[in-house]
């Protein structure tokens, strides 16, 4: 991916407190260590179903979510573990969800693709490509309806830009000035298809030009501060009754396969390409920069990293010890209230 055509240059460190920078580093390391543990647990058969890991893309989640207020809202697609944790769902609850246990953040009913955390306004965890973009617009509509000043941050993958929900949502948020920030995590591949092979546009960010009133920019998604600055500016633009939505294209890269069921490289990209991208690692470049600026010591880095490892080990142990749900919970939460006549009426022979 051509990083020479970015709209935002390096962000000055001067605007950030040391503690804030350490928090961002901590969140990125926690995400990385968490996903590494997921890969291990998946291979050992402790996690089932589809499992899409976020390794390599951490700066996109951390920079963006750290720019929000607590009362703002976050949506994402099925590659959702990191966003869930960064937004504030306990790693224990996310890991227990992956293990399909009762203490999971969705009580074990959702699994890897459906993390939800109502108390931190984390609205999922959506498994059908593009469907959550109109939902995010709806939360934006509700905010405007009530005269609030919260914003919605909605992440999605690059393959979404070619589908209908993307355009339908963009049209509505632009027309009705809804406080929504859409972030495409452009990691170059929609599953195993290079986005350049299927998108009739070079820069995905230009898709926003069709919608007047929508601000758009393309940034380096491997730079947490660029991401933070872009979302902070977007949030400011969006808040209030005359807010404007924003579309951010974050150029990023996933190191592993689309999901745990495919290889990191082979059919659609080369080993050399993955190795080259790994040299631009979002965590390494961020921590190097902080160290060069005397905002982080090697000892502090090791401490933060060890805390992340400890939290992830604790989460895995917690998940392992959390009970499996009883089969009878199958009927829970199908409806919010009574279902007349009973849901189990036609379910004989169990």
């Amino acid at each position, binding site marked *: 991916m051509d990083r020479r055509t970015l709209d935002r240059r390096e962000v000055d460190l001067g605007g950030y407190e040391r503690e804030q920078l350490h928090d961002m580093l901590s969140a990125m390391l926690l995400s990385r260590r968490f996903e590494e543990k997921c890969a291990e647990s998946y291979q050992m058969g402790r996690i089932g179903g589809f499992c899409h890991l976020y390794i390599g893309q951490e700066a996109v989640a951390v920079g963006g979510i750290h720019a929000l207020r607590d009362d703002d809202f976050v949506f994402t697609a099925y590659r959702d573990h990191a966003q869930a944790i960064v937004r504030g769902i306990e790693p224990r609850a996310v890991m227990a969800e992956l293990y399909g246990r009762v203490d999971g953040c969705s009580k074990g009913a*959702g699994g890897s693709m459906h993390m*939800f955390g109502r108390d931190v306004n984390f609205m999922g965890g959506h498994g059908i490509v593009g469907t959550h973009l109109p939902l995010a617009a709806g939360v934006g509509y*509700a905010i405007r309806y009530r005269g609030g000043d919260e914003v919605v941050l909605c992440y999605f993958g690059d393959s979404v830009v070619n589908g209908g929900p993307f355009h339908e*949502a963009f049209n509505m948020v632009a027309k009705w000035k809804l406080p929504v920030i859409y972030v495409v995590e452009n990691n170059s591949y929609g599953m195993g298809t290079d986005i350049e092979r299927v998108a009739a546009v070079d820069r995905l960010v230009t898709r926003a030009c069709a919608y007047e009133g929508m601000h758009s920019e393309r940034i380096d998604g491997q730079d947490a501060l660029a991401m933070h600055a872009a979302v902070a500016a977007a949030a400011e633009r969006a808040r209030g009754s005359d807010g404007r939505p924003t579309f951010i294209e974050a150029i990023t890269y996933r190191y592993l396969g689309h999901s745990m069921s495919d290889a990191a490289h082979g059919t659609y990209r080369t080993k050399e390409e993955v190795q080259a991208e790994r040299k631009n690692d979002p965590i390494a470049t961020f921590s190097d920069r902080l160290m060069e600026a005397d905002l982080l010591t090697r000892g502090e880095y090791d401490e933060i990293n060890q805390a992340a490892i400890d939290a992830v080990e604790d989460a895995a142990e917690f998940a392992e010890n959390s009970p499996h749900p009883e089969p009878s919970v199958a009927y829970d939460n199908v409806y919010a209230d009574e279902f007349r006549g009973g849901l189990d009426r036609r379910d004989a022979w169990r």
Partner: protein
Amino acid sequence: MAVITYREALNRALREEMNRDENVFLLGEEVGEYDGAYKVSKGLLDEFGEWRVRDTPIAENGFAGLGIGAAMAGLRPIVEFMTWNFALLAYDAIVNSAAKMLYMSGGQYNVPIVFRGPGGAALQLSAQHSQVPDPWYANIPGLKVCAPGTPADALGLLKSAIRDDDPVVFIEGELLYNMKGEVPDEEHVVPIGVADIKREGADVTLVCHSKMVKVCSDAADTLADEHEVEAEIVDLRTIRPLDIDTVIESVKKTNRAVVVQEGWPYSGIGAQVVDDIQREAFDYLDAPVARVSSLDVPMHYARPVEKHILPSADAVVKAARHVCYLD
């Protein structure tokens, strides 16, 4: 009791509920300035303003999804589809998002939303504009599905649907909008999931919903006048949850049943009703249950063919006579 049309009953339900709860709002194609393609939302834009009566672009998946998101954030949206045929473009939003959100979030996000609009055949609208969507939605756990056949039920059920904490698919009859009927002047709420005996009779049970209530009523008149058969009409009103108890009770009394639906026979609502009857009232049946439905073909444009495809009172009479061993 005032006599009003089905359309006016729906309009009254919308107005009353929007006045009762400021979280209730309406969105869809032409619902505002144009007063609705079928004038169901007449006058509401002037009364409630554009944030509560929102004209949308023609983008069903988009505005249905927007409604779902707003419901997750605590509003109570009513999404109008100009017809249910167009809602196929929003099937993903309804099935994958609205119906699943509470379940896959472990009970955290319910979706209190109503999707409503006309379904079924009208007059010579041919294949793409005449479909009966009932089983497409009744098949989905997480959804509730209502299909009222009279003005009073349209009023009472729509009010219940708007107050419901789950997604409700509300299927109106395109040819019912002008139907007149008595409607209580006071607050009228019909609970979701409760069938109604529209006519009592001892000889055969006619099970129906939506437009077929009128068809069965005409058939029952003929059966009584010309064949000395007293038919009991069970109007399901809601097809998920299905009030099968009322059907079973009636069948235990009459020992014979004809299940009537406008839609296609294959995997139709009637198939579900027949299955329930044979499992729960097998020993009470004096004849195999008969079904009347549309023919298993897309809708034809030409009037005589269209008429032939749709279920008629004549067909219901024939089926009733058959289960009574009169032919």
